């Protein structure tokens, strides 16, 4: 059974699952495996590994920055697959790749999905492939038993939310605000997010819903995700690494943040 599905089935009552995004190959190629395992140990339930792209137009400055560094470090899709294979030797945490379509297309859609499944990847998030364009990869995703996670936003109509639900597996990614990643604070978001999540709940019934964009702390997560199945954090983690790397203890800084995001301390 798909690891993502199992994770949601094992979720205890009242628990919010935590999905954590880091850019593969940032801050260096060697740390990614260790960061994933350490984040799991400190409370991560799902891992999203970013495939760096030179022109990440749905991302704010933070993830543009980590993507640039990772590309300079020489990250490639094959290296990401190797990292995931290594993680799989010791961990069964669900792993999702998140990235833009062009690197996937250049790699070859068929080969990409096959190798992703082989290395132990569970699903894909492709922000520039909306439901309308999923023909480009849909068949290869289902052939390889991968999950396709679509996004919905506050300006998505009820019809589009239902469509995203019917075309997604694993979960549906709810973008809490219109904007790029990492641009706003949780406090700004929580007031408007309730009506959005109510609509999400009404329209998305097949899949669990995870909410992201703007979550920086345990309090943000609890407020914003109160009616969701869980929450997603990305830019806050990259900012934490950016602040302390390569000082000794930079990994521990990150793991403490991860622990506090899930448990509040």
């Amino acid at each position, binding site marked *: 059974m798909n690891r993502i599905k199992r994770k949601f089935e094992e979720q205890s009552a009242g628990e919010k699952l935590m999905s954590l995004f880091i850019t593969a190959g940032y801050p260096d190629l060697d740390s990614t495996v260790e960061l994933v395992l350490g984040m799991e140990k400190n409370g991560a339930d799902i891992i999203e590994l970013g495939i760096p792209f030179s022109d990440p137009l749905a991302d704010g400055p933070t993830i543009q920055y980590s993507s640039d560094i990772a590309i300079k470090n020489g990250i490639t899709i094959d290296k990401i697959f190797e990292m995931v294979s290594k993680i799989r030797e010791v961990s069964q945490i669900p792993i999702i790749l998140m990235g833009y379509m062009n690197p996937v297309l*250049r790699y070859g859609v068929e080969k990409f999905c096959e190798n992703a499944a082989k290395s132990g990847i569970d699903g894909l998030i492709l922000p520039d492939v*909306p439901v309308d364009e999923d023909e480009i990869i849909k068949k290869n995703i289902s052939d390889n038993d991968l999950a396709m996670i679509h996004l919905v936003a506050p300006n998505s109509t009820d019809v*589009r939310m239902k469509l995203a639900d019917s075309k997604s597996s694993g979960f549906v990614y709810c973008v809490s605000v219109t904007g790029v990643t990492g641009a706003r604070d949780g406090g700004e978001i929580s007031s408007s997010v309730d009506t959005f999540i109510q609509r999400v709940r009404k329209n998305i019934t097949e899949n669990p819903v995870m909410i992201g964009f703007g979550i920086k702390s345990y309090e943000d997560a609890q407020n914003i995700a109160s009616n969701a199945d869980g929450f997603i954090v990305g830019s806050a983690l990259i900012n934490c690494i950016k602040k302390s790397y390569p000082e000794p203890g930079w990994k521990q800084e990150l793991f403490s943040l991860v622990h506090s995001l899930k448990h509040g301390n």
Partner: protein
Amino acid sequence: MNQEVKETYQQPNKKGYFGKYGGKFVPEILIPAVKALEEEYERAKNDPEFLGSFHSLLEEYVGRPTELTFANRLTEHYGKARIYLKREDLCHTGAHKINNAIGQVLLAQRMGKKRIIAETGAGQHGVATATACAKFGLDCVVYMGAEDMVRQKLNVDRMTLLGAEVRSVESGSKTLKDATNEAIRDWVTNVEDTFYIIGSVVGPHPYPMMVRNFHRVIGDETRRQIMEAEGRIPDYLIACVGGGSNAMGFFYPFIDDEINIIGIEAAGYGVNSGKTAATITKGTPGILHGSMSYLLHDENGQIELAHSISAGLDYPGIGPEHSFLHDSGRVNYHAVTDSEAMEAVKLLSKTEGIIPALETAHAFAWLEKLMPSTEVNEVVVVNCSGRGDKDMGTISENL
């Protein structure tokens, strides 16, 4: 009995595809905006009132129709086919870009959007957009690569004078590609009240189709004017291609005719120099800025930095319709280098008294290769897409 019907060109399809190119590869947040635009444009393009306002502005404000000039001394220089110039350089603001800016500002008004954003490379689209916004009293923010702001200082000053805010883009290569990324990020963030005026036949559907249609006036006028001058349509059309808006507007009304249509890309230092913007010549299909098209990218799918002496052609992508026309063989695409373009600037200036934009000069540079193979009774029309005043800094450095 079957009557043979001439197959006419019907692109794009309902999903915005020109063959396999085009589409709508944008984040979910932008889907409501592109759908609303698509619906509004479909209504507007058949609305006599909208078309009436558009065409009267083109006439009274832009100065259309632009002339078709017989280039007698350039024709003598080559001693072959007769050469005509479609004078888009005579448009208000100095290039064809204003046709599209006016069209999109009218649409923005219909949709009740008060804030306009745009990206610009050479600054011509930014100036055109700032101009149209000034004329209609709309707020205007133009994203421009920091590198281009240096190369095109004059246009930065023009935009500012016209009341636009020019935002310097420091990410990536600091050129048109990065300005486009930043404009899209602004759009994602302010999608409710903001209209994004894309400056070329690129981006998600419906932009490539819509921008082409706003510029088809170039080709429609050319057709009428050459019929008057020569009593027949031309044998050759030539235009420069970056994103490809002047070329698409010029070519489109002639697509079903059996004539030679030629698009000229910027080779930069040379197509194999690693410093080029010749997307069709050197690229392969990929997805950037909302559509599938030819792209300059490395084996990992990372977008490569384009290079051209001309800021307006310095872009690693190209409009999806050009990719389709290339694959189908309907249009032939070639590339000329920075120095060939510079030679063309000098030749056109001295023979015809017209200083072309560096972008436009690429189309003229191809005459060196084309003209020897033409016949004296043939007719060539070059789209003189913009004037060179804005490029005097770069031109002086390279004389």
